[in-house]
């Protein structure tokens, strides 16, 4: 344990670390609030949490610092990112105010609250910092373990019950009961034959296109893009990219440029003509 932790004032190194990382933490917190997209907010929050972990380490809370990185940035923020992906990354927040003037009132309230808190800390007599040198003498983890398994053992056991309840609750909340039986493959095939449309299997993604990404509609032999080649999930979400005509136009522009450079004029490549006809 370093002797600085026991001192009233910290070392220059810690002061430097505090001012640099503290600024970054505040910027991260502000961008969590003010970024328009939820993904950006989540990433800024993850950055702030890592900096807080460094501050825990600097304050002699070695176990908590590591737990902060593992639990918060590792588990909780990834959970957040999963939900953001599930709910839709592209869904930006609506900036319409439902209650008039609510945003300014909220900012005012926040400012007042901040002034109140900081004035309270300023007025409190926080003169003596004992430091953790004595408490951490046998090791920080051992010291924490002694407390958790003696003085706080009931809280610890209740925590176990809480975690189990939370896990069961999450499962119950996200579980969706099937209202009807899933159709078997045989029934699906029979239905398809009875309907008489698309009796053979659907075309594979991107087979005749210039790209083979799954979200790009493939070209049929007659040159028209077919949405059937894109998977049903992407089709329902409307996430189909159509670059077939775009790519052809790019190619045309490229060939025109090369022709100008080579000072050729009338010669048109045969495959381009065919592609043009196909795209029409």
């Amino acid at each position, binding site marked *: 344990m370093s002797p600085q932790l026991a001192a009233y004032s910290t070392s220059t190194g810690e002061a430097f670390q505090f001012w640099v990382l503290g600024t970054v933490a505040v910027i991260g917190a502000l961008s969590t609030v003010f970024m328009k997209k939820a993904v950006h907010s989540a990433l800024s929050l993850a950055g702030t949490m890592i900096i*807080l972990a460094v*501050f825990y380490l600097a*304050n002699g809370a070695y176990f908590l610092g590591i737990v902060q990185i593992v639990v918060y940035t590792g588990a909780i923020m990834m959970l*957040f990112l999963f939900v953001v992906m599930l709910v839709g990354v592209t869904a930006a*927040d609506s900036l319409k105010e439902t209650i008039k003037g609510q945003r300014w009132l909220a900012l005012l309230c926040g400012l007042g609250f901040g002034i109140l808190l900081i004035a309270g800390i300023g007025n409190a007599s926080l003169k003596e*910092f004992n430091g953790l040198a004595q408490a951490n003498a046998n090791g920080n983890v051992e*010291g924490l373990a002694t407390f958790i398994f003696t003085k706080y053992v009931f809280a610890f056991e209740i925590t176990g019950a809480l975690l189990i309840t939370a896990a069961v609750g999450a499962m119950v909340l996200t579980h969706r009961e099937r209202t009807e039986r899933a159709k078997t493959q045989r029934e699906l095939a029979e239905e398809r034959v009875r309907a008489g449309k698309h009796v053979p299997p659907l075309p594979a993604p991107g087979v005749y296109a210039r790209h083979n990404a799954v979200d790009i509609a493939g070209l049929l032999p007659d040159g028209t893009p077919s949405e059937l080649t894109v998977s049903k999930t992407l089709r329902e979400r409307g996430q189909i990219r159509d670059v077939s005509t775009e790519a052809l136009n790019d190619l045309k522009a490229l060939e025109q440029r090369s022709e100008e450079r080579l000072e050729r004029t009338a010669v048109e490549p045969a495959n381009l003509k065919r592609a043009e006809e196909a795209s029409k």
Partner: protein
Amino acid sequence: MNPVNYLYLAALLFTIGATGVLIRRNAIVVFMCIELMLNACNLAFVAFSRMHGNLDGQVIAFFTMVVAAAEVVVGLAIIVSLFRSRHSASVDDASLMKL
């Protein structure tokens, strides 16, 4: 530098989180701001633990982390099921009980 500055930083982060809860409409971002407030409290606990020279503050911060993990799991499950029934994660859209 006086270690009290850690408390000032915690107060600042808590304030930013609280303001975010009031300002934002997206339920996920509101939830993230709540996490920010919890983290600010943890920082204050750790700083107080250093001030008093015992580990009680760190134990409390540890329990806060556990409770925050449980809270995130349930809260995100609620947001997901809300999104499923409403196709939106905005807190304004959950107004079925309004006249």
